[in-house]
């Protein structure tokens, strides 16, 4: 495998895309209001914080990765 900045950029893009898909999926569930109440609120909050939030954080960190250029 040849590591490159481009590879990390692609991976970061994939993470953001994954997060967006997951967000859309859960937004759809929220919009239908099939499930409401404190449990539902907690579920949606955990989804945003622990899943999509972490994926966005990972993507940002991937953007910051740097390779040693002379090797």
């Amino acid at each position, binding site marked *: *495998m*040849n*590591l*490159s900045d481009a*590879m990390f950029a692609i*991976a970061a893009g*994939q*993470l953001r895309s*994954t997060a967006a*898909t*997951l967000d859309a*999926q*859960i937004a759809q*569930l929220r919009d*239908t*209001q*099939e*499930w*409401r*109440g404190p*449990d*539902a609120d907690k*579920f949606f909050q*955990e*989804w945003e914080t*622990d*899943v*999509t939030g*972490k*994926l966005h*954080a*990972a993507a940002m*960190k*991937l953007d*910051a*990765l*740097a*390779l*040693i*250029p002379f*090797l």
Partner: protein
Amino acid sequence: MSTKLGMNTTTADSVAATVASLGLGLEAIDEEVRLARLVSLNPLDFLLNPGALILTPASIGIAMSVSADITNARAQLDYLVEKLRQEATQQNQVSNSLVSTDPGWFAPGPTAKKPEDVTPFDEAIDVFGIFSKISDYVGIVGGVFDAVEKWWKNLPPGVTKVVKAVTKVGKFIPFIGIGFSITSTVLDWDNDNVWGNVRNIIGVGLDAASIVAAVTLVPPLTPVGAVIEGTLLGVGLAWDVMDVAWDAHDDGDWKFPWE
């Protein structure tokens, strides 16, 4: 327990299917980052990935954090999907219960447990990948040895016979060579020519190395041993030629053009 009954289980299944389809992508990204970290920290992994670039020291720490984030996100996804399905199942059972005595009213709530987050330090275990992957490397080396052994066994009997005969006689040659080297080093010893003495000692060292390397001539390692011994022989000969030329130069038999 929710305030609204009747979340459709197909909704939960749909979310689960989406998550499952995305899981492989997340796993692949995690594997890429992990490999980048290993290649950057473990010389063996670097050698096994020709042409790989390595991360800067600061980025290695960031990569550990990325892996922790992805690992945690995946674990939380599994937990939340399980919780959603259990919730949907429970709501479905309750919704299908017409009277309060129906068993559906007593359906258990979600039992999924929230997983504990891993930290970047947990990912640091891979820093010691050189140790954790030792079994892999042993396996690779073992595979090479097996292949060599198989190759040796499949050689025509005539060839193996000749090789065995040659090695039987040939294994004494280094001992004869080192005897000559030691004798000439002692006889040529000159306190006024330290470099000359060092050259002779290096010659003895090369002969000694060829004796040690003779263990590799034992079948089925013979082909590998022949390469090692051949290399030592070539280096030894080149060294001897250089030594003789240097001696002649020191004796004034010849000079460099610029001298």
